[in-house]
């Protein structure tokens, strides 16, 4: 549905997007993950036909975003970072206007509006002026705007920003429900959002793609270097020595003993080795009461940090 090849966008000497390539299949939700200024918004703006790329190609539903821009625009719904709202309009009039400029025939407009209002839970706000709505509702009107004309591709730039936790869950739910019928690209810098909603993740940093995979695979990728958390009632120093002797344990951090004699430790295993049973056996051998022992799998968060650290003060293009 969406094919992006070697997409590059340079603002003068600054390269905001640097040879980015990825594809999105029909009905898939692709998450665009990256720190602020990584080039997410720029990539999305190119896809929507808002701005041209410096080089490379992008095709949506088989149409080139630059050559057949009008065709592409018919197929997409787009929610920019700040929802493009007219504060003086009512929610209903606004959606009607959006349908008109999207060339939706008059007889279909009523149903489309009703449908979009229902999906975004705005039915009871339909006659309200947009300027009277709260931030969360405005965001939802923006979302309604992106899907009101039933486009094949929906591009959402930080769709949950500014919402309260309950609304965030609602919006994620809504996005998940839209998948299947719609192909969705969403950008975010919030990690749980990606693992919860997306089928695949593109991690982008400084304009370059750092990784493309499913959230599960990305998490699994780094599982090799597993960390193990232990809570044991034992003297500090002997424990440290014991842990150091275990083959396959690359590094161990032991906390100082608490008043009740508990010590917590984090052991890092060398990749590919599971040393949990060995640790348990050794501790029990000494007769120390073992309260807790579990592996910490690296979350997306760790992967993300690993892939995108060494953030310099170097000015990044504003998004």
């Amino acid at each position, binding site marked *: 549905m969406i094919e992006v090849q070697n997409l590059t966008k340079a603002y003068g000497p600054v390269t905001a997007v640097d040879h980015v390539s990825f594809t999105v299949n029909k009905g898939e939700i692709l998450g665009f993950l990256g720190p602020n200024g990584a080039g997410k918004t720029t990539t999305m703006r190119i896809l929507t036909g808002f701005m041209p790329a410096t080089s490379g190609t992008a095709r949506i539903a088989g149409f080139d975003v630059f050559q057949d821009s009008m065709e592409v625009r018919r197929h997409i719904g787009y929610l920019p*970072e*700040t929802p493009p*709202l*007219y504060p003086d309009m009512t929610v209903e009039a606004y959606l009607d206007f959006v349908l*008109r400029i999207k060339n939706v025939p008059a007889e279909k407009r009523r149903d489309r509006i009703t449908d979009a209002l229902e999906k975004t839970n705005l039915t009871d706000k339909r006659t309200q002026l947009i300027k009277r709505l709260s931030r969360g509702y405005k965001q939802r009107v923006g979302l309604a705007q992106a899907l009101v004309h039933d486009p094949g591709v929906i591009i959402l730039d930080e769709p949950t920003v500014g919402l309260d936790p309950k609304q965030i869950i609602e919006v994620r739910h809504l996005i998940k429900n839209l998948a299947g019928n719609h192909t969705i690209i969403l950008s975010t810098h919030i990690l749980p959002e990606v693992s919860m909603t997306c089928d695949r993740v593109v991690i982008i940093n400084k304009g370059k793609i750092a990784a493309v995979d499913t959230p599960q695979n990305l998490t699994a990728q780094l599982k090799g270097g597993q960390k193990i958390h232990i809570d044991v009632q034992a003297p500090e120093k002997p424990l440290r020595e014991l842990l150091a002797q275990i083959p396959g344990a690359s590094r161990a951090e032991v906390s100082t003993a608490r008043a009740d004699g508990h010590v917590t430790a984090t052991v890092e295993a060398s990749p590919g080795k599971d040393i949990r049973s060995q640790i348990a056996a050794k501790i029990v051998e000494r007769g120390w009461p073992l309260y807790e022992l579990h592996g910490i799998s690296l979350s997306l968060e760790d992967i993300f940090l690993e892939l995108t650290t060494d953030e310099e003060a170097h000015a990044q293009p504003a998004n």
Partner: protein
Amino acid sequence: MRSLYAIYRKEMGHYFVSPIAYVVVSLFLLLSGFFFRLHLNDAIEQSLQAEMQGMRFGMQQPFDAPTWILRAFLGLLALVILFFLPMLTMGVYAEERKRGTIELLMTSPIREIHIVLGKFFASLTLFGAMLLPTAGYVFYVFLHSDPAPPLRIVFAGYLGVLLFGGSLLALGSFLSSLTENQIIAAALTFGAFLLLWAIDFGSRGTGSITGQVVQYLSVINHFDDFTRGIIDTSGVVYYVSFIVLFIFLTVRSVDSMRWRRA
């Protein structure tokens, strides 16, 4: 065409739902009414003077008060709109840019020319709505004059005001598309209007080639003919090409927003 109408409709809604239209139109009517009253007084004084001079020096050219009032009033309208039209155009693009709604328009299947024309016709309609009530004054003049002044002064005059105002609207819209700050847009527009209005002040009667060129460029010069009841082709061509030029430039400017770093 449908999208052009969608933009037009949206702009009209914006003018009339927000207080813009009401504030601008009512202030405009207040001022033009005030000046009309002053002109009436002037006309009475002048006709008295003409009568007295006629008695003193024998038969003179009779003072045609109705025509004089109409011409003065039309000239006055042209002056007053210099101050009011920047308020109508300052926000047309600057506001869309500031709110980010331009991104919605430009990622919708709609051409820039439709956006620009839709907005231009909306501002022109509001301008027309602003002028319409002033027909009351004209009617008043007709009601109290015998014989009635020639109708062509009214038609040509209002056509002139509309063309002159249309030119200002096209220019103002273009300047609004250059910035996302409404105050800057308004200041630029107002400055440009005054400059175009006064550009030939220094070259009147010099007769040099440059002087003639500068006089041709002055927006108000072509207007005078219209108030005499003459529809001069060169004047119509001047205003229409002025409007077309700035609509074209606005389209280019809107299109260039894609290339600029936002």
